[in-house]
């Protein structure tokens, strides 16, 4: 793909994976030298060895009276509850907004307002309204996923080609049939892209939500460990959250391939 954009006349190129490997090796070596050599305090940057110990410790002993799996399961529950409700509601509103300009006019001020709003800002209000507990967290994740899904679904509907709709109309399709058989399938790809974006932001917001989680969840583990300057636990927690995010994203991709099997074929 890129070969044309490359200066010509180079001999015996190093394969790219070796460059990546070399770069990783330099980085890891610098990390080891800096930490084991005593250049930086373990407090600032844990060494690879202590990171490994932290991981082993978390897996074997858990964190503050719960195993790491329990924390992960509780986080997953919150993520799924907030994501599923937010994505479904957002997609429905977004479909309406894309389909009808008056629906768009009614909802877009709120969606546009909510979208760039920092989640932590409304979290403090949710705490006052719903108290410290599951409800406030799930509402926070709902509000995070909602505008992302709504805008993706709206863009999806708006991107449907006029010709297709006109063809269906001239063949005598009713408004509902056009929506059901033309607009909805054509925007499914965008809807799934929106769902993947939404799960990404929901995961990034999980830590914010679990500020008020009492003492459960991976995000809480990260925050609590950070407070006690246990950087090793923080790193392990971030890795665990990242892994869970990747797995959920992958599941969505698989579902998308099954459902939208025609994507990219027109």
């Amino acid at each position, binding site marked *: 793909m890129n070969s044309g954009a490359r200066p010509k006349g180079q001999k015996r190129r190093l394969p790219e994976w070796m460059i990546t490997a070399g770069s990783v090796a330099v980085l890891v070596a610098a990390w080891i030298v800096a930490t084991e050599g005593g250049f930086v305090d373990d407090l600032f940057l844990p060494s690879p060895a202590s990171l490994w110990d932290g991981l082993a410790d978390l897996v074997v002993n858990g964190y503050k009276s719960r195993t790491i799996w329990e924390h992960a399961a509780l986080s997953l529950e919150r993520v799924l509850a907030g994501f599923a409700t937010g994505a479904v509601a957002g997609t429905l509103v977004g479909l309406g907004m894309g389909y009808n300009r008056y629906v768009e006019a*009614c909802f877009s001020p709120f969606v546009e307002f*909510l979208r760039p709003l920092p989640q*932590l800002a409304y979290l403090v*209000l949710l705490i006052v309204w719903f108290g410290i507990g599951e409800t406030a967290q799930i509402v926070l994740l709902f509000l995070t996923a909602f505008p992302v899904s709504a805008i993706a679904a709206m863009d999806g509907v*708006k991107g449907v080609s006029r010709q297709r709709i006109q063809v269906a109309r001239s063949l005598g399709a009713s408004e509902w049939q056009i929506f059901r058989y033309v607009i909805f399938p054509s925007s499914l790809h965008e809807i799934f892209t929106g769902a993947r974006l939404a799960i990404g932001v929901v995961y*990034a917001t999980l830590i914010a939500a679990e*500020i008020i989680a009492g003492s459960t969840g991976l995000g809480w583990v990260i925050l609590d460990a950070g407070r006690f300057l246990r950087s090793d636990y923080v790193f392990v927690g971030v890795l665990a959250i990242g892994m869970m995010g990747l797995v959920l994203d992958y599941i969505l991709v698989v579902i998308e391939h099954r459902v939208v099997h025609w994507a990219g074929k027109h």
Partner: protein
Amino acid sequence: MPREQCAVSPASGWRSLGTRSLSALSVLIALGAWWAMSAFAWVPAVLLPGPGEVVTATLDILRNGYRETTLLQNVGSTLWRCGAGFILAIATGVPLGLAMGYWSRIRAAFNYIVQFMRPLPPLSYVILLIIWIGTDDRSKIALLYITAFPIIASSAMAGVRAVSQQRIQAAQALGASEWQIFRHVILPSALPLTFTGARIALAAAFSTVVAAELNAATDGLGWMVISASRFLRNDVIILGIILLGLLGVALSALVLALDRRIIHWRGVE
């Protein structure tokens, strides 16, 4: 952009006026519902102060400030942190992204670092940054920088990689030098995606700004909201949320307008 081209039928003046006023109406209805909820005491005033109280709080803060900070100062420092982080991310992310797109070896050396940074939740390393850099503005700007940088670098890289080979070959066949190809073919073709990335990055940085002001801050809108929540000043919280929301909308409108002006060739392929 396809949005404008295919969906919106040529809107005559009164039609777009109609949707405008419908938007205004729905905002008014929401405000009315808010007013009614507090005026008829459907919800306790502690939980939801009415619009009047928020206006009173706004006037009070405009006059007397909030805990020894003026409103302008809070808005200013939030915007300054956001802007500084974002501009630093543009200044470093765009060159790195372009280089990663252009030279596969640079991509091999740096791409995995960028992709690793991208999904990291900001709240997870905010404490580390404070330990490393300190409690002043620099650690907050660094947080926003780290949020924006990987998004910008990835999109600049994707922009370069999406340039069609035909164009490059055509320029080569016409005798363009390596630099000319970069300057007149690759750069203009890569800029639309780069700018889209910059818009996403600015939104991401803005939504992280409260996290940046969560710890060890003495001003900023995020600080104001969090500090107000400790004193149960819900009127100040709502004022802060409204200001943050409006700022966010204004910022994205500004970048969109810049996008339209600078990347005037977007979608004209």
